[in-house]
């Protein structure tokens, strides 16, 4: 009897003490301090990458490349920007970056006066170096440009067109109304190839603004040129609307459609076989080289930067190459 009672008391006591100490451990174990990530060395550069198209596969790759390079070189890099080519927001971010006195700004070029003014005067007055990536604006006094050689890209796509279509035919070049430098470069490249084929007729379609507008313009153009055989979208963002319009009135397959890869829809379209080829750029390399050059420049390792730009690799990717 006595033994049972002692055993019972022992069990109760052990249980109580166990739970008490377990709870006490839980309460006191946790670090009472808020998580403090130690400050990195103050010599680090603060870099920012600003784009108009956040969270697209293309720009994600650019950002990843830039981040990787920055991390390797011990610099901090933030990715800012706007969504869906919202240029107002984009410019605002750029201005904030300048006002925040970043050590260096890597930016997707926007060929507008506001952008040029910001880079030319504002950034310069704060002494902030600016490097454009992917899209160049050469007359903005940016330090350099890192990205594809758009002229060469235009030539490459034109050569492919000739190869696929032959030296005869009508080609529609779709462009937007912005006259952005990179777009002009591409068109120049295309023209420089196709110009030597007298059998090829070029027609220009200019998209103004919205998607509906693009579709309307396309309708108009296709009504006027029923004999068209190939389309080239100099601005990748217009491609999806264009393909949709073509698909609405006839089968898409017979047409040769070419574009560039700097729009999120391109890979899907290519995979579905709706377009025949795109120029594939090297976004990761752009980011990596851009951030690397910026740090080089800040360190004074490479002075001056080649204002002609540093070109990254471009490849032509055809629909039949895609699994």
């Amino acid at each position, binding site marked *: 009897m006595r033994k049972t009672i002692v055993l019972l008391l022992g069990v109760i006591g052990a249980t109580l003490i166990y739970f008490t100490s377990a709870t006490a451990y839980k309460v006191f174990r*946790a670090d009472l301090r808020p998580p*403090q990530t130690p*400050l990195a060395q103050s010599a680090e550069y603060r870099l920012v990458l600003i784009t108009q198209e956040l969270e697209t596969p293309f720009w994600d790759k650019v950002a990843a490349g830039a981040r990787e390079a920055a991390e390797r070189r011990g610099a901090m890099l933030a990715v800012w920007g706007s969504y869906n080519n919202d240029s107002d927001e984009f410019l605002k971010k750029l201005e904030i970056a300048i006002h925040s006195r970043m050590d260096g700004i890597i930016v997707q070029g926007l060929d507008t006066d506001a952008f040029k003014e910001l880079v030319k005067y504002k950034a310069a007055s704060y002494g902030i170096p600016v490097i454009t990536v992917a899209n160049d604006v050469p007359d903005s006094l940016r330090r350099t440009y890192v990205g594809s050689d758009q002229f060469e890209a235009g030539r490459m796509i034109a050569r492919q067109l000739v190869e696929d279509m032959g030296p005869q035919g009508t080609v529609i070049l779709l462009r937007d109304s912005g006259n952005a430098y990179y777009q002009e470069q591409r068109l120049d490249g295309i023209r420089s190839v196709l110009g030597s084929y007298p059998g090829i007729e070029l027609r220009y379609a200019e998209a103004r603004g919205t998607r509906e507008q693009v579709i309307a313009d396309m309708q108009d153009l296709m009504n006027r040129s029923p004999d068209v055989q190939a389309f080239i979208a100099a601005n990748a963002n217009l491609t999806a609307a264009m393909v949709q319009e073509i698909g609405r009135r006839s089968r898409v397959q017979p047409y040769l459609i070419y574009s560039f890869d700097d729009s999120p829809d391109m890979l899907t379209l290519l995979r579905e076989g709706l377009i025949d080829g795109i120029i594939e750029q090297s976004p990761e390399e752009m980011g990596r080289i851009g951030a690397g050059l910026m740090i080089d420049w800040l360190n004074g390792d490479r002075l001056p930067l080649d204002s002609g730009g540093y070109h990254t690799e471009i490849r032509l990717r055809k629909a039949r190459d895609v699994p």
Partner: protein
Amino acid sequence: MNRIQNKILSLTGIVLFIMAAIWMTLTWYSRQTQEQYNEILQRYLRMNEVTGASQQTITDLNNYLIRPTPENLDQLEQSKERLRKAKYEVYALRNGDNDFDLTSYTNLIDSLLEAANRALMFQTQMENEESNAAFNEATRISRSISDMTLTLLDTELKTYDRFYRGIIERSTELNKLGIWLLATFTFLLLLFAYWFALSITRPVQKLTQAAKELSRGRFDQKIEVSSNDEIAFLAKMFERMRVNINNLITEIQQKAQLEHELQQNKLLLQESRYRSLQSQIHPHFLFNTLDTLSKKAYLEGAEETSDLLASVAGLLRYNLRRMDRSVTLYEEVRVLRQYMDIQSARFSDRLRFVEEIDESCLYVQIPGLTLQPIVENAVIHAVEPMEDGGAIVFRVADDGDRIRVEIADDGPGIPADKIAQLLRGSAQETEGHTTGIGIGNVVQRLRLFYGQDDVIDIGSRPGAGTKVVLRLPKVRRYEADDQRTDRG
């Protein structure tokens, strides 16, 4: 000697200590938590302060640009100072996670101040357009600051999200801990108090039990209390008292025993005297008659008869006189010789008596009428019934610290059970004894006189005779007994 008090004090002390420890820990803990909350709040308040200060700066700048009075300028300077202060405070909040944003943030504040200064400068130079541009820029920057404050707060929340959740979790755990602590503490305290009470009451119970035993008259059980407080002391005293009482009782019992033995001794003596009185009906008449007979025999020329009669008279006189006192062995031997003279006359050739006596041993004290009954017994059993008579050998020899007295005969012997009976002193056989004193009486008196049992031994083999051996101590153990015997 104040152990119980100590126990109570230490119990109270332990309880107080544990309570104080818990209280202090909890207080310390809540202080820590408070500080954390303060720190967190401080962060948010500081960041918010930047927004407020920057907006205030813009407002004041605007006021001044519209109405450039010294008061407004003063106001503007104040809010700029406030903004600068807020900047320094917020700069102190940098850590690895928000370093980038926070540096941008403080730089934005610098830019804002710069833009504001530029607006002021252009204003004084009367370049209103430039001034307006600068003001617009400042406004934009201020807006950016507000935006960035939100971003920073958001980052902050993200960074500290787990920490905050941890705090909430911990506070619920703390509540649980409180309950558990209360339960554990109550349990332990109850247990401890029970044990403590037991440590006091158990010795008391033991003591009570012991007292009960004593009151029932059982003094032989040891009282043991295995604590180390006053109760133990009490028990020790109690034990000592018990031992004392026990000793006293034993002593009383021994005395009673002695008293009893003394009484028996007296009874034996009275019995002897009574028997001797029986045989001394008219002692003086008998003595006078015997004397007369002795003289007459002597006158008639029968000298032998005269001597014989004188021996009988001497023997009878000794018998009456010496019964109740100690005598020397020498006297005993003398009486024995007189007795043997009488017996020799009676049995003539049939009785052969041999003496071997060490004369130096005869000083020893011995109860009166010891040897005569033994020899008489030998005569009765070993000589009288035999046709050819018998021999009796009487020896006295020195035997170390004792005197060895032997009375041996060559009679038919005594059966073993009879010997045992004799040595136990329970045989009441007096037939044929002159003095009315039997062997049993002698055995008992010898033992009482010397205070030891091995003083007499009887050896016998059927047909080979009997040998009674007395080993008399040269020094008596109880001299006092002698006196008491004298008085009786």
